């Protein structure tokens, strides 16, 4: 079970060449996969050969998520030290043991992320080939976030070391420090990103010759990078085929639709033109292509709601939020995401489980940080507004 990952740079570039519209049964799954360079995950009978151990490990983690009891206990805490004590009784254990006494919520968040990253690295170090690339793909999302964080920070003249501390550990790569010296997209690509797996994604933004220190421009770059990433990930999952392709397409479709809707809503009131906005929508998702055309033409929130109303689940999401409730669209999206990922977590013989595990852990970290924030600000009544029960 030693990690046998190939250089991830070539994997992502190669997978952009995959063009499988339907599942190709070339015998690479299961027993004879090792004879090819790119095996596929096994089917019902042969999945356990390569990935059974890790699947069981991750699914055994199900009971380690905080349950309703734990959240109730946390909600009656008076201070962050109480939170630390209650968390010590759950599966989190003594992860805050070495922290000095006046705890800050940022410390709790960093320690939670560190614990999660340790688990992820354990899984990643035991993974063999198609799973290893799959887990790498999950990391590319964090890499994109880190790249944008560093670029934005550099534009505001922040200290590099401080920026690198704020980066997510899953998305770190060796040359991230030299991002601060980049002044244009082509420099960004040629000096830094060409060596990373997300290099091919920047090729889709290469036409963006102006790289002015402007919040909006950097957000545009982020959205385009993420669009390329989602499409590449989707192509890879379709190549893997079987249960992985089915479930991952569901999860990635939701992610793409969420980004399309969020981009549209955030672009109202800015100078972003409708054509520019349309280039940022990922070309996958339930809203693609019909809803996306309507989204591109939308001018206000009401038209956005109409544009997505032909999909029942999104229509329900928009119904849940409204002027009466305190729930925002983001919260509704988080809830729906947890539902989708929870059902993906219980599947057998596919890799969607690992993706769902990462997303659910992220949600749990968000929950814990929200609880810590509410407790430290003394607004305990608001805890249950944003804490989404995972299992």
């Amino acid at each position, binding site marked *: 079970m030693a990690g046998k990952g190939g250089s991830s740079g070539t994997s992502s570039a190669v997978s952009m060449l995959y063009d499988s519209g339907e599942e190709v049964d070339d015998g690479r799954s299961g027993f004879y996969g090792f004879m090819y360079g790119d095996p596929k995950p096994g089917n*019902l*009978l042969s999945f*356990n*050969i390569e990935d*059974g*151990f*890790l*699947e*069981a*490990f*991750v*699914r*055994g*983690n*199900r*009971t*380690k998520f905080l349950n309703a009891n734990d959240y109730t206990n946390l909600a009656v805490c008076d201070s962050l030290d109480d939170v630390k004590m209650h968390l010590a009784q759950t599966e989190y254990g003594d992860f805050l043991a070495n922290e000095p006494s006046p705890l800050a919520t940022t410390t709790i968040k960093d320690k939670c992320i560190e614990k999660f990253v340790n688990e992820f690295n354990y899984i990643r170090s035991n993974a063999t080939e198609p799973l290893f690339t799959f887990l790498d793909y999950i990391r590319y999302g964090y890499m994109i976030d880190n790249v944008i964080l560093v670029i934005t920070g550099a534009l505001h003249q922040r200290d590099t070391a401080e920026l690198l501390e704020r980066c997510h550990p899953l998305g770190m790569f060796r040359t991230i420090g030299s991002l601060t010296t980049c002044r244009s997209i082509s420099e960004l690509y040629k000096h830094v990103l060409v060596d990373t797996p997300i290099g091919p994604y920047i090729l889709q933004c290469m036409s963006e010759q102006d790289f002015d220190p402007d919040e909006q421009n950097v957000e545009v770059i982020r959205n385009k990078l993420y669009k390329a990433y989602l499409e590449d990930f989707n192509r890879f999952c379709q190549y893997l085929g079987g249960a992985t392709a089915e479930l991952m397409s569901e999860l990635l479709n939701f992610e793409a639709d969420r980004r399309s809707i969020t981009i549209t809503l955030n672009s109202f009131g800015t100078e972003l033109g409708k054509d520019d906005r349309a280039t940022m929508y990922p070309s996958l998702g339930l809203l693609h292509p019909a809803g996306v055309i309507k989204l591109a033409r939308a001018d206000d929130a009401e038209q956005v709601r109409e544009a997505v109303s032909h999909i029942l689940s999104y229509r329900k999401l928009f119904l849940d939020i409204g002027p009466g409730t305190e729930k925002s669209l983001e919260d509704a999206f988080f809830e729906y995401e947890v539902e989708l990922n929870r059902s993906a977590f219980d599947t*057998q013989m596919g890799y969607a489980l690992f993706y769902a595990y990462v997303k659910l852990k992220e949600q749990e970290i968000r929950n814990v940080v929200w609880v810590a924030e509410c407790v430290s600000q003394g607004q305990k009544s608001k805890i249950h507004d944003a804490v989404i029960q995972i299992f």
Partner: protein
Amino acid sequence: MGNFITTILYESPYLWAFTSVALCMALSVVGSAWGIWTIGASTLGVSIHKGRLETRNLVSVLFCEALSIYGIIVSIIMTTKAQSQTCDPISAGDYLVGYQLMAAGLISGCGNLFAGLTLGIVGKGMAVCAAAVSSLFVKMLIVLIFAEVLGLYGMIVALILAKDEFGIVCSV
């Protein structure tokens, strides 16, 4: 082609008898091994968290092992039967015994093979589910027992065929 079939059909009954012994043992072992690796990988995964509790899943491995024991029982009985039929010249009775043993071997081997596949997939699911909901373990054992019984049916029929004393005894 006709010549080929005729040649096969008139081969010695030892061909049938001992091929079946090989098939019985081999297929039983394949089924048993398939089940064991499937269950074992998942048992290891869940044992990381609650090691002492989750190693109760090794009872599923025990079920798989029983399948290869059925295979070996049938194989040994078939071997002794085949070796006791030394007749010269070979008569019709010997062909009957040869075919009986071929049937016995295939029945037992294939039965154990598919029982092993079933045990593997069910045992794997059981390992993971029992880690989440502890009370499911005992209930899933019922499924494992039913899967085990498939191999047992194969062994029963194979033993009846292999030890059939109604066969025509060597007429020398």
